[in-house]
């Protein structure tokens, strides 16, 4: 059971990195170049508010998720890992 969960987490991480590169048109960046703990906005990947809009769409279209509670927004959108965990935890529900 533990193994299945970990597998899913790995799959989500891989899919998310691919989506980030394609949806945000990250030039010269390959999915494998993105670290798991890469910070999304400001430093790290250096995304901006335009990219934030795209991530919201990406979450909805590919994972059927909406971030309703914006008090959690900063925590969820902090890094690749935090976003992956959010997707993982909310997909299970």
């Amino acid at each position: 059971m533990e193994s299945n969960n970990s597998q899913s987490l790995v799959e989500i991480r891989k899919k998310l990195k691919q989506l980030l590169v394609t949806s945000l048109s990250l030039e010269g960046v390959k999915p494998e170049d993105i670290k798991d703990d890469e910070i999304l906005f400001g430093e790290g990947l250096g995304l901006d508010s335009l990219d934030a809009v795209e991530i919201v769409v990406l979450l909805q279209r590919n994972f059927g998720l909406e971030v309703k509670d914006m008090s959690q927004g900063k925590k969820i959108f902090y890094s690749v890992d935090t976003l992956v965990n959010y997707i993982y935890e909310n997909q299970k529900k």
Partner: protein
Amino acid sequence: MGFWFFRVCLKLFGLSGAYGLLYFVCVHYLLFDKKAVTNALAYIKRRFPGCGWFKSQVKVYRLFVSQGKQLIDRFAIISGTAKFDIELKGYERLSALLADKNKGFVLLTAHVGNWQVALTTLKNMHKPVYLVMRPEDNAAVRESLNIDAQDDFIRVISPEGYLGGVVEAMNVLREGSIVSIMGDRKYGFEGIDISFLKDRAYFPFGAFSIAASSNCPVVVLLSAKLPGRKYIVDVSHVLFPGYEGTKDKREQLRKYVQEFAGVLDKYVEEYPYQCFLFHDVWRAA
């Protein structure tokens, strides 16, 4: 200018009396509020190029008086002190958009005319309007829009929230609500350079990126004071932002921002003393 002043004048002297006092009050602002004059001049010198110092000052004064009158009108309308005719232009297009219960739209406003009156006029839309507005502007705008008395018709999203409030804006658009954003000043959003009044200006593109990604239209909301006790509210300009392929999205949004600036160009050509930007949008910041 303090809101209390207009409210008191209106109560004591009525609409015409309050207008009369305004001419003296605006002289004070012209002489002593250097910041307001400088900010107004950024617009005046582009709208009236070649104007000398004296003529420019006169035009700034006219702009102050014009804004003061519209502030007074706003309170007169809210308090019921005076009646105004409000003509709505383009409601058919808006009505068609409102018919779609599952889809919202972005209502793009600007610092021209009496946008608060225009917004209040639309309360019959039967859809909540979420104003993207800074917390420090909350009190003044709440008061001028009489938000608390509008039965929750107008709600607020802060652009200073995480990621500029874009996630909240997209959520409510998906629920079929309306998101109202200022299109001529950046506030929490990023800007892009376009041409406004034949000079390079910087307008925000956040409204268009939210609309493009949410697959929602952008309705431009303009209003202007006409002679007599009359206003016109114009919602006839509807834009449909979208992306083509994977080309630079920021660049793709530029044409929509420019189209909006073009609408404003025409507006200020017709109503030169109803542009209340009071901000140098031509300066990169």
